[in-house]
C-alpha cells in the first residue's frame, strides 16, 4: 500500500484511520486494532491527548505503528507544548521515520481530565505549520541553522460546519498558505453541505479528506450535536439510528458512513475514518464503502 504522501501525489483516493492511545501502559487492545487496519488504510492518525484527556504520548505510539507497517500521522497540538517542545518533537518524529504530521491547536484543558492544568498554546495550528515548513527548510523558528532538516508532510484540520463559517474559511486559507498539504475535516454528516465546502476548497492547491465519525447510537449522535462544537448530525440520521435499535445500531452507523462516502467521494480526495473505540470495524467499513 502506498504511503499517505505517495497516494496523494499519485492522485489516489486516500483512506486514513485513527488510533487513540490508551490511558495507561496496557497497549494490547490498541495494537490489536492497529494490526487489523494494516493494509486497508494508507495512514493512521495517532491522537495527542485527545479531548485533553491524559494518555500515552502520540510520538512513541506513531513509532510502534510504523514498526507494524503503518504510515502514521503524528497529531501534534499546541496545548501542552511550547515552541521548543513542538520543534524538538517534530525533529524527533523525523528521526523515527515518521513523516506525516497533523498540526492542531488542541482542545482546551477544561474539556479534559486535568482541568487545573496550565494551557500552553504558545503556538497554534497555523504557526505549527509554519514551524514544520521552516524545519523542512533547514531552519528553526528562531532562524538558526539545523544540522539536518526534516522531511515532514504537514496536514491540518478544518471545520466545514463551523458557525459562523467565514472566520473558519479565512483560517483554512491561512493554513494552506502556511504549507498544509492535506486537510482532514472535523466530523461531517451533511453530504450537501460538505460538497458545497469542497467546491470552495477546490480553489486551493491542497488535498481534503472528509472526516467521518462512526455513529454507534442515537444517544451518541445527540451527544455530538450538543457537546462537540462544529459537528452537526442531521435529525434524519438520528431518527435512523433510533429506529435501528441496539442490535442494528452499528450496522446502520456503517451504512450511514458508506452512503456519505459514496455520495461525496468524487468531490474530495479521501476519507478519514474515526471509528472511536470500534477500530476493529474499519476493514469492514472500507470494504462496504467499496474502497477496498
Amino acid at each position: 500500500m502506498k504511503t499517505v504522501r505517495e497516494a496523494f501525489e499519485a492522485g489516489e483516493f486516500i483512506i486514513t484511520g485513527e488510533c487513540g492511545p490508551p490511558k495507561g501502559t496496557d497497549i494490547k487492545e490498541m495494537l490489536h486494532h492497529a494490526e487489523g487496519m494494516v493494509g486497508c488504510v494508507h495512514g493512521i492518525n495517532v491522537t495527542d491527548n485527545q479531548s485533553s484527556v491524559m494518555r500515552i504520548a502520540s510520538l512513541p505510539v506513531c513509532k510502534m505503528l510504523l514498526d507494524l507497517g503503518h504510515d502514521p500521522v503524528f497529531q501534534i497540538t499546541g496545548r501542552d507544548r511550547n515552541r521548543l517542545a513542538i520543534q524538538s518533537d517534530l525533529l524527533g518524529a523525523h528521526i523515527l521515520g515518521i513523516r506525516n504530521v497533523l498540526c492542531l491547536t488542541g482542545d482546551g484543558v477544561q474539556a479534559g481530565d486535568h482541568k487545573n492544568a496550565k494551557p500552553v498554546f504558545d503556538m497554534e495550528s497555523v504557526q505549527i505549520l509554519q514551524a514544520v515548513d521552516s524545519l523542512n527548510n533547514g531552519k528553526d523558528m528562531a532562524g538558526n541553522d539545523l544540522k539536518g532538516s526534516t522531511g515532514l508532510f504537514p496536514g491540518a484540520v478544518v471545520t466545514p460546519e463551523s458557525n459562523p463559517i467565514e472566520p473558519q474559511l479565512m483560517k483554512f486559507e491561512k493554513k494552506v498558505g502556511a504549507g498544509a498539504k492535506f486537510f482532514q475535516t472535523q466530523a461531517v454528516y451533511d453530504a450537501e453541505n460538505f460538497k458545497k465546502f469542497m467546491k470552495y476548497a477546490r480553489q486551493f492547491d491542497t488535498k481534503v479528506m472528509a472526516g467521518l465519525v462512526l455513529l454507534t447510537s442515537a444517544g451518541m449522535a445527540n451527544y455530538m450535536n450538543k457537546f462537540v462544537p462544529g459537528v452537526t448530525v442531521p435529525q434524519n440520521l438520528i431518527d435512523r439510528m433510533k429506529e435501528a435499535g441496539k442490535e442494528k445500531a452499528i450496522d446502520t452507523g456503517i451504512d450511514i458512513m458508506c452512503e456519505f462516502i459514496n455520495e461525496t467521494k468524487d468531490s474530495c480526495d479521501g476519507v478519514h475514518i474515526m471509528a472511536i473505540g470500534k477500530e476493529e470495524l474499519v476493514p469492514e467499513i472500507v470494504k462496504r464503502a467499496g474502497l477496498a
Partner: protein
Amino acid sequence: MIVQETKSKELILEMLKDVKKIFLVGCGDCATVCEAGGENDLKNITEFLESEGKKVTGKIVPDTSCHIPDVKMGMKKHAKELEDADAIGVMSCGAGVQSLGTLYEEKIVYPLNNPLFLGNTERFGQHVEYCSACGECRIDQFGAICPVTRCYKGILNGPCGGVNNGMCEIGNDTPCAWVLAYERLEKQNRLDNLKEPVQSKNWAAHLRPMRHLNPSNIKKMEEKAAKRAAKEAQKGK
C-alpha cells in the same frame, strides 16, 4: 483595574486559625470598586472576625495599597495597633498584600482577597477581562479586540474549531474573540488584516518579574549619571 473578590468566610477562618489579633488593610482603589476592600467591606469583615473571637487591633484603607511609599506614610498613625497585632490581613490584590509584606517583614501577612484579572468595567459592578498586560500590544490588527486575552487559547491566527454559534467552547456565555474581531473588521472593511499569518507571540516582552521606570525617571537617572561622569572627569584632570 485589578478585579478581585474576598475569599469565602470559611477559607478566611481556616487561614487565620492561629491568629488572635489582626490589623486589617483595605485599598481605596480597585478593591473598593469591587466591594472587596473599602471602608464598608473592612467594617463587615471586622464584625465577622470579632464574632469568631478574634481581635481587630486597627484598620486602614490606603488610597492605593500597591503604592508602597503611600502605604508606609499612612501606616505611621497606626504603629501601636500594628504592634499589638500578630498578623496583617489585607483586602486588596496581591500587589497590595506584598506592599505590606515588604514594609513589615516581621509580620505574617494574609491575603483576604483573590485577585482575579485586569478588568474593564462594562457597567456598574460588572467587569470583564479584555487585557492581560502581555508586554506588546498590536490589537489594531484585530479590530481592537485582544485575542491574547479574550480568546481562551490566546491564539493569533483566527478561531479554533471550538467556536459554536459564535461562542467559545469553554461556555460561560463567552463570545469567540475571533468572531468579534472578524465582524468588527468586516464593518471597517479591513478583513484583509486577517489574511496574513501572525507570528508566535514574543513572550520575551513579558518576562517576569517585570520592572518599569517612567520616562522622567529615566531622564533623571541619565542626568545624574552624566553629572557623576563629569565630576569624575574633573577629578581625573
